[in-house]
């Protein structure tokens, strides 16, 4: 949960300095990067590592079992792509907003903002969820994986490579959400059928019509043939 003791005492409107971040995150982050929203790379962490169900990093709640937050900004620790980040956010901030605005990780797209297009798909632990309908504070204590965390600086996730190989994109705006949805499917089912893939992305909207190639790319990684 959000850290009520405020171990990262930034002023509410101040961006966290790189020094407040763990070493593993530093290489990918500069203050300029934050401000320009340049996007954070995975900072060399392997994001397909084992992901725990619930992190023990949750702050201890107050003794009566209630932790009071907000309505003003509160410091919150988010575990994103293998690195810890502290952000100052209001409780109403969605995970998508925290990622995109506070952390400058703009790979996650917001399209419908109502949980019906899955453009904003990220993983909470390894489960794909809509970050537009998740409050950032509800991501505390979980491992958040974003599209930026799926690849490292020099190596794409096999599915990302397959998306490129099969031209499974046009304008590219739905692509991060599609990749996160299909990659999550492969995590829990390494050999999906096309039927499985269609169902796994049945909440993801693409307006350019890249679906056939998304199916093909995912099937390619799954190592199964179209009619399997």
């Amino acid at each position: 949960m959000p850290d009520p003791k405020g171990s990262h005492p930034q002023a509410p409107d101040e961006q966290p300095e790189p020094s407040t971040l763990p070493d593993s995150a530093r290489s990918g982050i500069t203050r300029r990067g934050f401000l320009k929203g340049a996007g954070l790379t995975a900072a060399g962490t392997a994001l397909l590592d084992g992901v725990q169900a619930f992190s023990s990093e949750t702050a201890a709640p107050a003794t009566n079992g209630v932790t009071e937050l907000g309505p003003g900004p509160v410091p919150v620790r988010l575990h994103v792509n293998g690195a810890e980040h502290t952000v100052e956010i209001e409780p109403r901030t969605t995970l998508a907003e925290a990622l995109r605005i506070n952390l400058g990780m703009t790979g996650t797209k917001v399209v419908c903002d109502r949980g019906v297009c899955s453009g904003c798909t990220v993983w909470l632990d390894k489960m794909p969820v809509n970050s537009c309908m998740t409050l950032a504070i509800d991501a505390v204590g979980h491992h958040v994986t974003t599209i930026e965390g799926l690849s490292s600086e020099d190596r794409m996730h096999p599915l990302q490579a397959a998306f490129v190989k099969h031209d499974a994109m046009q304008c590219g705006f739905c692509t991060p959400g599609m990749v996160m949805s299909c990659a999550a499917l492969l995590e829990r089912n390494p050999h999906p059928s096309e039927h499985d893939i269609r169902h796994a992305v049945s909440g993801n909207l693409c307006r350019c019509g890249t679906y056939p190639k998304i199916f093909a790319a995912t099937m390619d990684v799954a190592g199964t043939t179209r009619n399997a």
Partner: protein
Amino acid sequence: MNRFSIADCSSVDAALSQLKDGAVVKAGGVDLLDRMKDGIEQPTRLVNIRNISGLRGIRETEQGLTIGPLTTLAEISDHPLIQSQYQILADASGHAATPHIRNMATVGGNLLQRVQCWYYRSSDFQCIRKGKDLCFAFDGLNQYHAIMEYATCPSVAPSSAAVALLGLNASVELSSAKRGKRNLGIRDLYVVPDANPTKFTVIEPDELLTAIVIPKPAPGTRSAYQKYGEKESFDWAIADAGVVLEMDGDVCRRAVITMGAASPVVRRSPQAEAALTGKSINEETARAAGKVAVEGAQPLSGNAYKLDLFPVAVYRTILLAAGQRDRDPSAAG
């Protein structure tokens, strides 16, 4: 979304202590955030129960199943026991909303979600369910609205879990700090808009949904749920049906037929049930039951087509439950 403070609770007692002064419970938050983003609800204080571990999980008991209200739809639909013995619930949970929403949305939230009527969901329309005196659907666009039991408001019951749980004769446990616990059947959880349009459920402001209890099905029970939309990829139901059949060999000893998108509150169809009771299940009897399921229905200006759809949804789901037909590939969800 408006600004709000949040009381993050780690236990039921903690949550109950916070249910005061207009505070609103947030579990998965999907429907609540939706309403807040649409500006039709602006609570200034949320009680976050999402992290109360005791409210999550599926437990088999002597009497049947107890499901924590924070159990997600995905967890329910993936559960082996539910898949084998409570197929109707696995179907309903597994075909609600989108795959990602099913990972986030809780079964409690699904039961308690508000209607999807586009007038209700728009802050531009101050309708009878928001305490005003107009319903816009009667003279407006109503193709997705109710065909029965809608004198005051023709919005339809949105919860597919409710269609399944009503079929399974489930009950819910409500807890209050002051008044303790009470148990209600699924049908009694909901307030019919004719009785009170602004109250969607009987849950009082100081109450929390703390358990869902499902009795063990009688031996020989088979069940299924199917939902039809305009789309196959995620869509709200334009017609749906839940079917529970207690079979005695080939003969149906008892049938429960439930429907969601026909009326403002989830309903059983006594006519359809009667049509099956004591009969063997085949296409003819299933179609006969489907036909009577819309008896007495009165469509609005834009939804007469539902009179055709519901009988089909009902007969096909009966056959699906009876194992005489595959799941319809064009069913939604």
